């Protein structure tokens, strides 16, 4: 397989995640779409790391996965706190900072 195959797959996955972030109103699905985007970037990292025969990119994916896990934990805690406040997880309800 050529390098461009993996890069295009990564671009498509990133676009799908991007669509989810823009389109969906459920905060949990938005968070999952963010994870899809991070995942696509991880694939890009590994593909370039393999192409350049350098391990540094692959090791960076370790840290990327760790940061994503921390981000999910904090994000879900915020979603639960907002749900306690508003009894909904749809983004339209969260407009405290508007006025």
């Amino acid at each position, binding site marked *: 397989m050529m390098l461009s195959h993996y890069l295009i797959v990564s671009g498509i996955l990133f676009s799908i995640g991007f669509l989810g972030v823009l389109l969906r*109103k459920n905060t949990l699905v938005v968070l999952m*779409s963010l994870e899809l985007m991070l995942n696509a970037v991880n694939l890009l990292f590994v593909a370039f790391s393999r192409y350049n025969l350098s391990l540094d990119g692959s*090791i960076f994916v370790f840290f990327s996965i760790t940061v994503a896990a921390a981000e999910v934990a904090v994000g*879900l805690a915020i979603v639960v706190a907002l749900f306690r406040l508003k009894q909904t997880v749809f983004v339209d309800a969260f407009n405290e900072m508007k006025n």
Partner: protein
Amino acid sequence: MHEIFFYFLVALTALSSLSVVLGRNPVNGAMSMILALVGTAGLFAMLGSYMLAALQILVYAGAVMVLFVFIIMLIDIPATAAYRHHWGTLVAAILSTLTLGGGLTFLFLAPEFRQSMPEIAGAASNGSGLVFSSQAVAYGAGLMGKYMLLVQVVGILLLVAMIGVIVVSKDLRATNSGKSLPTPPAN
């Protein structure tokens, strides 16, 4: 054989990603997300990073998605009312996605990316960079050697995230309304 497997994994990952984004039920979305992550892990394995494939399944498809499913089940969202968009939002989202996807695809079709992958066996060190290897020992040596400081920084980040989650999860309104504070005895 290699190519059939590649396209199978790509189809699995892309279709389940679309199912996450377009599906109505968040629980089904989480299940599709697990499939998408497993497909990406397969792509990692095809690239020779078996260690990252295992880590992806353990951490992402295991721990992170269990957390997602747990929270989805905890807060019990009504499955209806998923789609009520202004058509402007819809058109803008689809247009910008097509622009992004088309642009990235055009960029990645450039001739300098149309190279086949080099053999792992012929890898040689070029200065300060670590040499690519499929073996887990190479990752361990890199993490405990060149990237030791980064490992410790990430450890602190996890600690901060843990404290942050505890602070955010505490119900502060209960203490603010004075319900949980004991009233002093009147004498």
